[in-house]
């Protein structure tokens, strides 16, 4: 694979920020993702839903190469993901990821968690990185906890720190893998509020979630996956009120 896709053309602004073409992935013999085609424009917000085991996590993890795909193309921000580690690191630096279980670094303080990427990947001077980090902590309303360790924070606070950690890298795209599923109900809202704020600022977002309220109010597009395929994608109005496929109808009837 080479960089032939990386042609810089005048209509660059219209180029999708993520482009996935005929992508397949297997775990051994198990065909987890089959024939995925997806284009995400800058500032688009996409919610991905589907039953457990349908491959939602696998799909968004392929976008920053936490999982490797075996066929097809994934092009992020003009860089094609292949075995070249330099390309992979470049894409990862541009793509923020928020995990279900936060995955903060427990041996570092909150502020150190936030500045790690900027200092060692972006080579930002420490002082500058800390100032930026404080700004993002304020944005997720947790600045007073900067000197604490992750283990001393509640789940909701940790997830907000995790979001801030990704934002510190100034990503082009944010991926969320069930960011609220590990949280107690009273903490879900504080995390969703931060995500809504981000969406309003125009961040490009791919969100795997079961929060259908969030999907209805924020998403530009809702995507339904089943059995490793994208079954249906539509604007939230159409998706929820007038689903096209039987499988989507069944799924919606179960969760709504």
């Amino acid at each position, binding site marked *: 694979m080479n960089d032939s896709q990386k042609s810089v053309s005048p209509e660059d602004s219209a180029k999708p920020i993520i482009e996935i073409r005929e992508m397949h992935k297997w775990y051994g013999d198990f065909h987890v993702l089959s024939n995925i085609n997806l284009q995400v424009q800058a500032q688009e917000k996409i919610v991905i839903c589907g039953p457990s085991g349908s491959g939602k996590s696998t799909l968004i993890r392929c976008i*920053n*190469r*936490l999982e490797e795909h075996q066929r097809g193309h994934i092009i992020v921000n003009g860089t094609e993901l292949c075995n070249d*580690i330099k390309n992979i*690191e*470049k*894409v*990862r*630096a*541009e*793509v*923020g*990821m928020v*995990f279900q*279980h936060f*995955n*903060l*670094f*427990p*041996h570092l303080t909150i502020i150190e968690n936030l500045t*790690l*990427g900027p200092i*060692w*990947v972006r080579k930002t001077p420490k002082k500058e990185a800390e100032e930026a980090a404080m700004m993002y902590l304020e944005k997720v309303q947790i600045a007073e906890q900067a000197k604490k*360790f*992750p*283990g*001393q924070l509640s789940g909701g606070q940790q997830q907000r720190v995790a979001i801030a*950690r*990704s934002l510190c*890298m100034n990503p082009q795209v944010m991926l969320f893998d069930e960011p609220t599923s590990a949280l107690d109900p009273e903490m879900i809202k504080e995390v969703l509020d931060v995500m809504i704020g981000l969406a309003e600022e125009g961040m490009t977002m791919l969100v795997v979630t079961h929060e259908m309220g969030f999907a209805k109010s924020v998403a530009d597009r809702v995507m339904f996956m089943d059995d490793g395929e994208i079954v249906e994608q539509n604007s939230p109005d159409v998706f929820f009120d007038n689903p096209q496929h039987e499988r989507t109808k069944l799924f919606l009837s179960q969760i709504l």
Partner: protein
Amino acid sequence: MPESTAAKREQLKPPVSNVGIIGWLRTNLFSTWYNSLLTIAMLGILAWLVPPLFRWVFIDSLWNSSAEACRDIDGACWSVIPNNIRFIILGFFPEGQEWRPILAMILLLSLVIYSKERSRWKKSLAWLWLINLIIMGTLMYGGVLGMPVVETSQWSGLPLTFLLSFFGMIVAYPLGILLALGRRSEMPAIKTLCVVYIEMIRGVPLISLLFMSSIMFPLFLPEGVSIDKVLRALIAIILFTAAYIAEVVRGGLQAMPRGQYEAADSLGLPYKHTMRLVILPQALKIVIPPSVGVLLSVFKDTSLVVIIALYDVLKTTMVTLSNPKWAGYSSESYIFLALLYFVFCYAMSSYSRKLEKELHTGH
């Protein structure tokens, strides 16, 4: 109203017999009939053992006398230590040059104590160590500033034990970490190499490695080339320790949740930074207790170098005892030696506990 609450509180005080010395005795020593029986039996044994031991150590003993005076006593002849301390500690280091190894040891110990504080773990500390290593080496070897050369064959006693154990550990630990990372590497060549190395070394006792380093290894060297004997022993100890450290560290790496790697990866952090900044600090913290176990046993196992005719502090003690004048006082000498080892081992393990506590961040 407040008064009556206070009165009620008064009544709720714990029964006297549950607190204080009596309470402690009751809950810990006399809680059941067999517990009481055990306690009484133990008291009996102590009463039978302790007084004679106490007499032997403190009352009937001599602390600083000639060997002749010791013939007439029933107690311990501690005099064997002060009379031979020069040889036990410094061995064959030339007369009149004693200040050099002593100064080197003081430097080493001060440096170790200075390095205990985590706030001092900076680059400058590494430089400090490097400079001091050169100074210590110069002190021991001499050849400059009017200090006569002392060949390493004359290095013996405690300085030799320190040299073999401290530098064995300091070099072996990073080497072990690299081996552990290598063993988990995705590159098959590196992985195989590390696995073979680790398993081979772990399949061989230290004694045979020392033998190999002192007897077999020189056979492979070209004519006229010889590598210093102490250095060869040191290398054997390093290679041996590194393999064990590698397995301990690998355990720590395996205990790291996958999410930590993924979080670091998704920031775009390259492998070396991921390891250095995210994975190793956590993994090494987990393995402090087993690492210290390995290091303690290395410290003690350095005494095995006696079999290749190096005179560490155990061997110098044995030499002292081979003098007919002092031959009968091995118990005293070995007790002294045991205390010496104990002091260092205990210091190491209590430091590791302190470190563990400091590194705990509430997760």
